[in-house]
């Protein structure tokens, strides 16, 4: 039974395919998010609901047909779009929605909000999920494909939590958050550059996959490398810009009064 997108080796068609496993994961994600939002005593704000719903939609689009099918077995470029949607779309949007109302106090929340933990977790997952032999071995298997894609979501949550964590879990001041986000854009440059400048296709899976619209394996790989930098990085820069403007606004507001707490929560002004 097909419950998750994986590489099949069959020629690509635009015929819709159902993946019940993906629907279950998306519904679970939505339920967990809704419960987290519901913990706010005042009830979730409309803004939180909007961000939460957008996160769920980003996750659904990133996993399900056609992106999931194309990305798991045909085009590395689409596989990278999935990575961007999950790590730089669904994850930060979900955390932002939660951060608008939650006051996480647990030790785990505070531990995960440490920038070293965030960077280490994100980069470890980024590295593992881009090693060719791992991808070639995992993606033809539904469980393997599930593992890679859930890894991206977890990696994204780890990356963005130090920026999004509200007080009292938060550890970073706004300038440090900007520095942290800037640092996070450096390691992905390595796999991105390798993909763009490699002489030969790196992934057996995508090299030997049935071609889609005549796109060559090398061109597909180069586009994947470009997406990793040119789509993911601007999202991080946007986040840096939002933190910067919030920081400036708070600095102006607090002029003449005692210095602001370094534990401001939401990335985007609520």
């Amino acid at each position, binding site marked *: 039974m097909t419950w998750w997108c994986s590489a099949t080796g069959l020629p690509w068609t635009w015929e819709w395919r159902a993946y019940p496993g993906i629907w279950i994961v998306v519904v679970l994600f939505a339920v967990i998010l809704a419960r987290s939002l519901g913990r706010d005593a005042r009830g979730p704000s409309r803004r939180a609901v909007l961000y939460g719903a957008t996160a769920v939609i980003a996750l659904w689009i990133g996993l399900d047909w056609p992106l999931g099918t194309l990305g798991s077995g045909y085009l590395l470029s689409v596989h990278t779009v999935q990575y961007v949607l999950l790590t730089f779309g669904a994850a930060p949007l979900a955390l932002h929605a939660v951060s608008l109302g939650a006051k996480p106090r647990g030790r785990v929340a505070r531990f995960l909000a440490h920038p070293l933990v965030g960077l280490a977790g994100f980069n470890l997952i980024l590295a593992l999920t881009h090693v060719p*032999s791992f991808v070639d071995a995992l993606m033809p298997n539904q469980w393997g494909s599930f593992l890679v894609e859930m890894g991206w979501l977890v990696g994204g949550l780890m990356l963005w939590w130090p920026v999004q964590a509200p007080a009292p879990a938060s550890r970073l001041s706004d300038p440090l958050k900007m520095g942290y986000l800037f640092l996070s854009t450096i390691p992905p440059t390595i796999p991105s550059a390798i993909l763009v400048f490699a002489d030969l296709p790196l992934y057996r899976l995508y090299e030997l996959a049935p071609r889609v619209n005549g796109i060559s394996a090398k061109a597909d790989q180069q586009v994947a490398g470009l997406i990793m930098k040119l789509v993911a990085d601007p999202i991080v820069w946007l986040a840096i810009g939002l933190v910067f403007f919030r920081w400036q606004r708070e600095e102006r507001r607090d002029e003449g009064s005692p210095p602001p707490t370094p534990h401001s929560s939401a990335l985007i002004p609520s």
Partner: protein
Amino acid sequence: MTAASILRFFLRRDRVLAWVAALAVGASGCAAAGGQRVPDALHGSVVDPPWPRPHVTLVTTDGRPFDFFEATKGTLTLVLFGYTNCPDVCPMHLGTIAAVKNRLTGVEANRMKVVFITTDPERDTPEVLSQWLGSIDREVIGLRGTREQVARAEDAFHLGRSTKLQDPRGTVEHAATVVAITADDSVRALYPFGTRQEDWLDDLPKLLARGKTP
């Protein structure tokens, strides 16, 4: 939790991290180790003893008779059977070979020929075949023949005969093998579907070197 306690946390778990790192390095190393070969070994299945270059006559896309032996003798020749509506194997093999040819020196590329013999002569008219091959690599020689001529050619290359299925897509089951014939007019190796660009890039210079005129 302070930075020092975070550091202690990681130090306590250094073995876990080491295992994860070793796993990643090992996984990437496995492929490399698996690929270690003796210098002269080929990635394709070696034909031993080699067969002689077959004698078959078919027709080119511009309607001229093509005596395969005479037209290709003394040249490294890669031969594959397939059809233009093939959804996977044929475009993959031809695209892979074309990509690798582009990475060879001009001299090397000029010392080899690629021949594609259609197994679907009804649909692969000269125009269709010529246009399709041109979209992949203009230098590929496209050959046609009657069903009987194609079947005889498949026999001559020691490949299974192709079969046209009665399905709506008009699928043709055919050998997914590229036959490599070196300049000494011997069939030296067979390359199955799944042969990668790096394999071809490794093997083509070796195949070019075999039977090379001193």
